[in-house]
């Protein structure tokens, strides 16, 4: 491996980013992207835990058709807060702010992100947004659904809409600043020799994600702001009584919130590209197609928001335009799935936990993506929208996709982050449990949706109960499966096996420095002379079967 020639076996540095300085202050005022990533990791896990608790209450309530566990007002708050916490405070920052923050500079050979102070600021903004939202939850909660549809949210809801909105508004800036930092870093701070087409696909995915963050987030910010003012002053910008249009809110909201789905899943795709290539010791099949499909998803993702409005009294013609574009955005995702699969051809595949998560991701993302086609298809969407089919679909993307990729990435880079290995046996076991539990939770919901069970129902007709019980059973398995990593990862920070600098034997730049890395990441600025995922010399490249149009590796 070329990588290994360039950096002869880096010794574990005695001084690394974790022990370079001590004390609470050294963490709270750190400008080191790795420490900030850990700050994010802690806070995101906290919000994930809260969101998970809400999920538990939802599933318990739905065990029976009667609303016997929670009152309807409480139930409405619980699903709303589950959505808000999970979407804005877990999923959107999950991979970019933790793994991305930690690895983007390392993977391109930089000492830090371009704006370390802004990076720290973004964490504080996130924290402030989170605190304001938690205040809203504690003060009395919010019951509008995470979508805040007007005029319910502006006029009729008697809950803490403005406080929760303010929390999301503030949090948006943290997302913008993270995206801005990534874009500038990737443009200006790549190490010598790190050309665009030598970058790991994780970086491409984060670049695409950052584009969505900076272009979409401001629009949700202004939307939430208008919503809050509207609620305060009732001047009617979304209120038909004064000549406003409630559907305008939906346009503005989904202009961000649909692309936000890609903020969640694109980094996951980046992680999976890393895992698939590295754990099968192969270059990614069709590297440039996978890279550009990330950008294509980022761009096309902005053109499809109207498919959330097919039954919202949107014009028939707009519906057809949006339906067409929504089908078009499926293609780049399909390209990714096919290329990942093709990468495994004649590979050397290990069964380490991160790879299990990556394989799970591909399967679940395929289901999630394909069921998206049902919802892009106008006539079927009319029947399926606002039913459990949608709930199942987006959980397949967000949990089956993003969460699995996040867990896979966390395990993969755990030795780099902490300098210790996680326990492999437990990790594989929990990966399996998560996979089974997840499918049992959400597969029945597809069926429920087609049967006509509307979402956000506190009580429901008894004929749906069997499927709901299955789903709740799955959720408890899923919840149990997610608790195991929490325990063993914390355990491993102290008692795990000491990890070498490059425990997986990989060529990526982040593995060419000690574990945990020093504060400035590398002893010397690396000079990159090899391609991404170059396990064997390019001269040995084999050309696939009869599709013989590329004599050498294309890039």
């Amino acid at each position, binding site marked *: 491996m070329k990588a290994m020639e360039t950096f002869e076996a880096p010794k574990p540095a005695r001084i690394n980013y974790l022990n370079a300085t001590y004390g609470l202050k050294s963490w709270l005022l750190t400008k080191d992207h790795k420490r900030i990533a850990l700050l994010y990791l802690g806070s995101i896990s906290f919000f994930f835990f809260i969101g998970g608790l809400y999920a538990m209450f939802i599933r318990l309530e739905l065990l029976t058709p009667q609303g016997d566990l929670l009152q309807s007002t409480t139930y409405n708050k619980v699903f709303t807060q589950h959505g808000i916490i999970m979407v804005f405070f877990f999923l959107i920052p999950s991979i970019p702010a933790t793994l991305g923050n930690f690895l983007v500079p390392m993977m391109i050979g930089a000492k830090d992100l371009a704006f370390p102070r802004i990076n720290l600021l973004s964490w504080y903004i996130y924290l402030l947004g989170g605190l304001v939202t938690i205040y809203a939850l504690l003060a009395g909660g919010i019951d509008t659904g995470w979508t805040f549809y007007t005029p319910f949210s502006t006029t009729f809801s008697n809950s803490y809409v403005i406080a929760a909105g303010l929390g999301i508004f503030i949090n948006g800036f943290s997302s913008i600043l993270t995206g801005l930092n990534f874009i500038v870093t990737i*443009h200006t701070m790549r190490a010598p020799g790190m050309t665009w087409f030598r970058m790991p696909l994780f970086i491409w995915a984060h670049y695409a994600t950052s*584009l969505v963050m900076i*272009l979409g987030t401001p*629009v949700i910010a202004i939307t939430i702001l208008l919503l809050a003012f509207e609620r305060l002053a009732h001047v009617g910008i979304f209120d038909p009584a004064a000549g406003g249009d409630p*559907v*305008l809110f939906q*346009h503005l909201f989904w*202009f961000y919130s649909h692309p936000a789905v890609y903020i969640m899943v694109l980094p996951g795709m980046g992680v999976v590209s890393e895992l698939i290539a590295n754990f099968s010791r192969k270059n990614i099949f069709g590297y440039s197609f996978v890279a550009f499909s990330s950008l294509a998803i980022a761009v096309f993702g*902005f*053109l499809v*928001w*109207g498919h959330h*409005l097919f039954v919202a009294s*949107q*014009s*028939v*013609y*707009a519906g057809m*335009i*949006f339906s067409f574009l929504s089908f078009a955005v499926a293609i780049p995702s399909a390209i990714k799935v096919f290329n990942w699969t093709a990468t495994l051809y004649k590979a050397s595949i290990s069964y380490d936990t991160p790879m299990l998560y990556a394989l799970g991701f591909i399967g679940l993302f395929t289901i999630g993506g394909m069921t998206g086609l049902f919802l892009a298809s106008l006539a079927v969407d009319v029947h399926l929208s606002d039913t459990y089919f949608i709930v199942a679909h987006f959980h397949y993307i967000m949990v089956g996709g993003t969460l699995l990729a996040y867990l896979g990435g966390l395990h993969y880079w755990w030795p780099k982050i902490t300098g210790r290995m996680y326990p492999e046996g437990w990790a594989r076991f929990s990966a399996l449990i998560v996979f089974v539990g997840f499918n049992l939770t959400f597969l029945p919901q597809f069926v429920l949706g087609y049967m006509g069970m509307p979402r956000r129902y506190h009580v429901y007709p008894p004929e749906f109960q069997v499927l709901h019980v299955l789903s709740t059973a799955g959720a408890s398995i899923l919840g149990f499966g997610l608790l195991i990593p929490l325990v063993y990862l914390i355990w491993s920070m102290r008692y795990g096996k000491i990890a070498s600098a490059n425990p997986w034997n990989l060529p990526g730049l982040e593995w060419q420095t000690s574990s945990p890395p020093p504060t400035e990441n590398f002893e010397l600025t690396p000079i990159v002379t090899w391609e991404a995922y170059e396990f064997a010399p390019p001269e040995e490249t084999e050309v696939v079967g009869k599709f013989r149009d590329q004599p050498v590796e294309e890039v």
Partner: protein
Amino acid sequence: MSEHIVPVRVYLMIFLALMVGTALTIWAGLQDFPGPLNVVIALTIAVIKATLVVLYFMHVRYSSRLIWVIFASALFWMGILFALTFSDYWTRGWFQVH
């Protein structure tokens, strides 16, 4: 892109052009042009003024292609927001319910 220094003369000319544009737009705003021409004229002048500021005061004319792309992308995404939203509003009346 780095050290291009724009001469004062250029700055002054741009400033004067902006002043003329402002005067022109006020004058045009008070005339009664046929149809939607008032809106068209006002927006055209505003776009020209903004372009001058971007190109000269903000040095985009002397900047790398990357800056051009970034700025253009913002306009492009604004275009998406407007075009697709109005694809709904403008076509709502097309559909005859009866």
